């Protein structure tokens, strides 16, 4: 039982490049979330999903896309990387709406130059 895993751990992108941040959980959780954390700031919700095939925008969705084809995977896509997307990205999952304790992945540190 690995919990929530994220890859890569670090990445440097050039402006305009694209990439996918991977997130996988093996706890059979229905709910999954993507957050970003900027230096000195709190978490901001990018997108979330309440089950396979269902996604919804969070607080800061612009510049990102997600998909949820399986319960386990919730990848986050950056199509045209911008310096404003330099941040640490955390993926999280939780079991249901009645159990809102989220399990977090280790984070992906992304730098866009």
């Amino acid at each position, binding site marked *: 039982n690995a919990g929530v895993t994220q890859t890569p751990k670090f990445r440097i992108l050039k402006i305009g490049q694209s990439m996918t941040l991977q997130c996988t959980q093996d706890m059979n959780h229905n709910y999954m*979330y993507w*957050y970003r*954390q900027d*230096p*000195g*700031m*709190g*978490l*901001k*919700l990018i997108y*979330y999903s*309440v089950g396979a095939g269902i996604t919804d925008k*969070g*607080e800061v969705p612009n510049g990102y896309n997600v998909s949820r084809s399986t319960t386990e995977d919730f990848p986050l896509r950056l199509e045209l990387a911008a310096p404003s997307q330099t941040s*640490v990205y*955390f993926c999280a999952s939780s079991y249901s*709406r*009645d159990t*809102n*304790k*989220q399990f*977090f992945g*280790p*984070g992906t*540190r992304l730098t866009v130059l």
Partner: protein
Amino acid sequence: AQSVTQLDSHVSVSEGTPVLLRCNYSSSYSPSLFWYVQHPNKGLQLLLKYTSAATLVKGINGFEAEFKKSETSFHLTKPSAHMSDAAEYFCVVFFSSYNTDKLIFGTGTRLQVFP
């Protein structure tokens, strides 16, 4: 080692009465501390943060928290509870070093507000 302890798993108050949600932390470094709220079926929302500036931090929706280094505490308060405050609250420590970034969450406190 860094850790966060939320002292109450459940807190119940009447509408209009004060709210106190307790949080103690342990950190070898100067911590960044946060309080988040989560309403049912939603993601986390930031209430307030402490990042070594003023020790009394004001957040959204009338909440505030005081960083007390001598007590290693960061308790969340609100003078008058509202029904819409019913949710789960998380105290979080964040630290960043050259090769790792880590969030440490407390176990959460569920706030119930009665009419």
